Structures are given as structure tokens and as C-alpha cells.
């Protein structure tokens, strides 16, 4: 067994086991203590089984949403940082989250629903908004030259973020109090999904993104040396950049459709992981996905319990942790 294979296995086990404990334990923790055996007791009908209701309807979907969103945002952060050759990039740097926010807020303000008027269109509108932002940024980045200009990508993303924020304020002006409150809550980033439906919608998208991520680690190592050095080592730079851009954008859009723009996961997790395993993307990418899942679930458990019975949106917790962490990173370099 070679050194790199051994490191890969050790890394996945060392991150995976604690993650399983955290994710497995999270649904058991909360403001109300529940008895797992009672919750799993099929002899009591679920309408009379409060433990089962809390476990299956409130906590389990929320934990699974946290794991999905955490893994996806952390991995997307790794890919964006490699693509943009910038360790301070996040999944939201390129304007995807503000596109998603605009979509979500339109759905909230104009009360869009799907089908028979029962299902909220917010996740789908937010995903559509992120697709729109991605399309604009991509079109700009390929307009001026063959290949993908990461410099234009970065500037276009930052500008689009500002522009969409302005549009959000504009739409906000026409919203009533209840709508404004819902929008604000959505913008905070919250995993209170109350059911499996958003997860089921996002899962195929996230799975497709992870399928593409699996092809990327070596290309990301090379891209971080610069496009010419990467090309001279045998990769198709434009193809790799395009794959990285679209897969990470897809992952981000899917994650935001579930939990809103939960900040800083995509930067805290990859950096902590790099401190532990080094910079080789073949280790950083899977380790970040695993650690991201556990980290967001842990943050959400804290959010649910820290001032119980009030449940904080998890985005508040990650932002409170992430802001100082980001500054520390900035100063450390």
C-alpha cells in the first residue's frame, strides 16, 4: 500500500467515525428529551407517539438536511478555492447565493406555490435564482477570451452580489411585514425544513455535483499552480475549470435551496481540514465533505439548544463562528 492510499484511508476513517457519532447523536439531542425506543416503537400509532413525531418529523429531517447542506457547501468551498486559486473564496463569492436569495424572496413576496397551492415554491425559486446568477457570471467570464477567465469570474461574481442585493432591497420594499419576516429568516440560513421534501428535491442535484467532484481533485492540485503549469502537466485546463465551476455551482444552488445561504461553512471547514491533512485535494475534498456534514449538524444542534426552547437559525451560529475565523485567516497569512 502506497503512502497516499494509506493517508486517504486514514483520513476518511479519522473524519468519518466522529462524523457518524455527531450525525447519529444529533436527533437525540434537543430542548425536549425523547426516548429513542419509544420513538421507534411501531405498536403506538404515530399520531399518539410524541417521541416519534419529534424524532421523525422535526429532528431527523433537520439533521439530514444539515448533513447534506454541510457536506455540499464545504466541498463546493474547496472546489471554488481551487478553481479561483484563492483560499478566501467561498461558495457564495460568485453571486450564487444572492441569485438564490432573489429567487427565494420573489417566491415569498408574491407567494408563489406549486401544484395545488400547498407546496412552497421557495426552494425551487431559489434554485432557479442561483442558476440565473451562474449563467450570467459564466457568460461574462467567457465573453472576452477563449477559455475561462477566473479574474473576470471573481469580479463579475462580486459585482453581481452587490447588484442582486440591490434588487432584493427593491423587491423587499413591496413586501408586507409577514413576508419581510420570512425573507429575513430565509436570508439567515435555517435548517428548519419540517419534512423530507426539500432534501429529496436537492439530493439528486447534490449527488450529480459530487459525481463530478470525484473527477476533480488532481486537476485542482494542478490548477492551483496556475493554468499554464496545469496545462503543461497534461490536463485540459478549460474543461477542468468548467467542470469545477458548474459542479460547485450546482452543489451550492442545491444546498441553498434547502437551508438558505448558511455562511462560512464553505471557508471554515476547508481551512480546518487543510490544517489537519495538508493541501492535496485528493484528501481535502472528501475530508471537507465529511467534516462539513458533521460541523453543520453540530452547529445546528447548538442552535437548537443554546437558548432552548428558542431555536436559533443555524446561519447565526456559523456567522458568529465564521466572522472571527475569517479575520484570523486573513491576519495569519
Amino acid at each position, binding site marked *: 500500500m502506497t503512502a*497516499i492510499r494509506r493517508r486517504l484511508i486514514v483520513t476518511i476513517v479519522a473524519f468519518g467515525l466522529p462524523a457518524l457519532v455527531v450525525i447519529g447523536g444529533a436527533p437525540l439531542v434537543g430542548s425536549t428529551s425523547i426516548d429513542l425506543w419509544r420513538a421507534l416503537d411501531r405498536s403506538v400509532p404515530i399520531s399518539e407517539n410524541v417521541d416519534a413525531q419529534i424524532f421523525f418529523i422535526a429532528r431527523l429531517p433537520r439533521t439530514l438536511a444539515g448533513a447534506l447542506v454541510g457536506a455540499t457547501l464545504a466541498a463546493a468551498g474547496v472546489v471554488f478555492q481551487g478553481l479561483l*486559486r484563492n483560499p478566501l473564496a467561498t461558495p457564495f463569492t460568485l453571486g450564487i447565493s444572492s441569485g438564490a436569495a432573489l429567487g427565494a424572496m420573489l417566491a415569498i413576496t408574491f407567494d408563489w406555490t406549486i401544484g395545488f397551492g400547498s407546496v412552497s415554491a421557495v426552494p425551487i425559486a431559489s434554485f432557479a435564482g442561483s442558476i440565473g446568477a451562474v449563467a450570467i457570471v459564466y457568460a461574462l467570464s467567457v465573453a472576452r477570451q477563449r477559455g475561462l477567465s477566473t479574474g473576470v469570474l471573481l469580479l463579475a461574481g462580486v459585482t453581481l452580489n452587490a447588484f442582486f442585493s440591490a434588487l432584493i432591497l427593491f423587491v423587499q420594499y413591496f413586501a408586507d411585514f409577514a413576508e419581510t419576516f420570512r425573507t429575513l429568516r430565509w436570508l439567515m440560513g435555517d435548517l428548519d425544513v419540517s419534512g423530507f421534501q426539500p432534501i429529496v428535491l436537492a439530493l439528486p442535484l447534490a449527488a450529480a455535483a459530487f459525481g463530478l467532484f*470525484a473527477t476533480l481533485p*488532481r486537476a485542482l*492540485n494542478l490548477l492551483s*499552480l496556475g493554468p499554464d503549469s496545469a496545462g*503543461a*502537466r497534461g*490536463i485540459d485546463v478549460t474543461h477542468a475549470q468548467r467542470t469545477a465551476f458548474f459542479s460547485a455551482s450546482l452543489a451550492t444552488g442545491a444546498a441553498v435551496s434547502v437551508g438558505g445561504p448558511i455562511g462560512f461553512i464553505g471557508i471554515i471547514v476547508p481551512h480546518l481540514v487543510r490544517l489537519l491533512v495538508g*493541501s492535496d485535494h485528493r484528501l481535502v475534498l472528501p475530508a471537507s465533505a465529511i467534516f462539513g456534514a458533521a460541523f453543520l449538524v453540530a452547529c445546528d444542534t447548538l442552535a437548537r439548544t443554546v437558548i432552548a426552547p428558542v431555536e436559533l437559525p443555524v446561519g447565526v451560529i456559523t456567522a458568529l463562528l465564521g466572522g472571527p475565523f475569517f479575520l484570523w485567516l486573513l491576519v495569519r497569512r
Partner: protein
Amino acid sequence: MLSASDVRFSYGPSKDTLRGVSLTCAPGDLVGLLGPNGSGKTTLLRLLAGLLRPGAGAITIDGTPVARLTRAALARRIAVVPQETHPAFDYSVLEMVLMGRYPHLGRFALEAPEDIAIARAALAATGTAELEERPFATLSGGEKQRVVIASALAQLETTDTPSPVGSAFRRTSAGLSRASSYLLLDEPTASLDLGYQLDVASAVRRLGDERGIGLLLSTHDLNLAASLCRTLVVLKAGEVIASGPTADVLTPALIRRLYGVEADIAAHSRTGRLIVVPVGRTAAP
């Protein structure tokens, strides 16, 4: 033999960067590429490495057009050392050198022990073996450049064990016959002090002499070119204005024409090499 024949290239419609350039580099050759800023040296190297496609003309390696090879196949035969390398993340020296092995591995393959042996041998060949565990970012400029050269060496090293081609999990380079390989260096000593310039230059010279790698090196340093290169190719405004053995090409007239500088060229008494001493600017370059 790596050769460019009548290569034309432009980055945009306005101006041609290269206007019909031809050159050859044989295995074991050490060819210097001279020319003022903006003369097209870097563009030519990028074309030779397959990073750009010529607008007209042909670039061939042992007669095969470069465009007909896959990127990985080309990378196993042509490596590039840029002026400076700044990885966005902290890699160890060994990790940097192992990145040279990627074109030899299938998409999902991991480096085998022999790849690590090749990387260590490449580090030893450039006198950087003791740096293996160091973070690349903490090295001095000259150490970095030698590690990047080691990475290029590891990239050009073929293994002689034939293996089934086509599996993404196996190595893909079946070295049935040792094909010629080339190293393109773009101003490799430009940002280095005198001591490191010598280290890099002697590492480069050994590659041609001992391994038969064809070397093509662009530089602004006329004395480096004079001491290192057997052949010179001189570019100005996208055209070759002189080429041939170093002693024939490197003349005061050429330097006047290239840079608008009056220079004396003499053989150095202790080394026998040509040295170029700029004396002053001529009236009009």
C-alpha cells in the same frame, strides 16, 4: 526532434505575435531563445508545449504534429518550467514533484511506489533531496526553481513496464521505446541571485548532458545564454532574426539591433566562454 516550422500566432485580430517562426531542438541540445520584451518568446514556448494552437504552421515532435497527441501524452514528453511558480496552497516539496507524475496516471489512479522513487530521484538530480518534507512556500527562490525543475524531470521520466492501457485506475504510460523528451524553461533564472543562477544553470546543463533531454530556454541574460547554450535563436517582433551556433550569433551587431545597446563581446580568459559587456546606448534602437 521538437520543431516548429513557419509558425504564426496572434492573440487577437489586431496584431500578430509570431510571424512565421521556425526552430528545432534535438535530444541533448541546449537551445537559447533570446529577444527583447514582447518579442514572442513566451508565446513560442506556450505553443511548443501545446498550451496554444498555432494559427498557421506546424509544431511536431519526432515528426508527429503536437495537435495529434493527447494532452497527457504530450505532457509525458514536454515539460515546462515557468519563471516563477506560486501555488495557491501549501504543498510539500515531494507533493510538488509528484504532480509531475499525473500525466502518467489514469484518472483515479494514485501514485505507486515507483512514482515516489522517480520523484526522489528527480529531487536528487537537482540537488534538493534534503528538502523533500519542507513546505514549498518556505523555500528560497533558487530552491523553488530547482524543485520545479525536479517536477518537470519526474514528468518526463517514463517507466519501462508495459501495462494495460485504458483503465482509469492504472498507469497509462507504457514506455515501449524511450521517446525523446524536452524541457522548456521560460526565463528560469530571471528572479534569482547570482548563486542560485549558477545552481539552476548547472542543474539544467546536466539534464542535457546526462539524460539526453532536449532543452529550450528563453532568457534575457546574455551571459547565461552564452555560457549555457550551444545554439541560439533570436526573436524580434515575432520573427527569427538570427539563429545558429552561439559564437556565430552573439555579435555586437546583433545586440545593437535587438536592444539598441553598444556592447563588447569577448572570450573570458579563465572559462573560455563568451561574455557580453554593455557599454552604452546607441543613438536609435
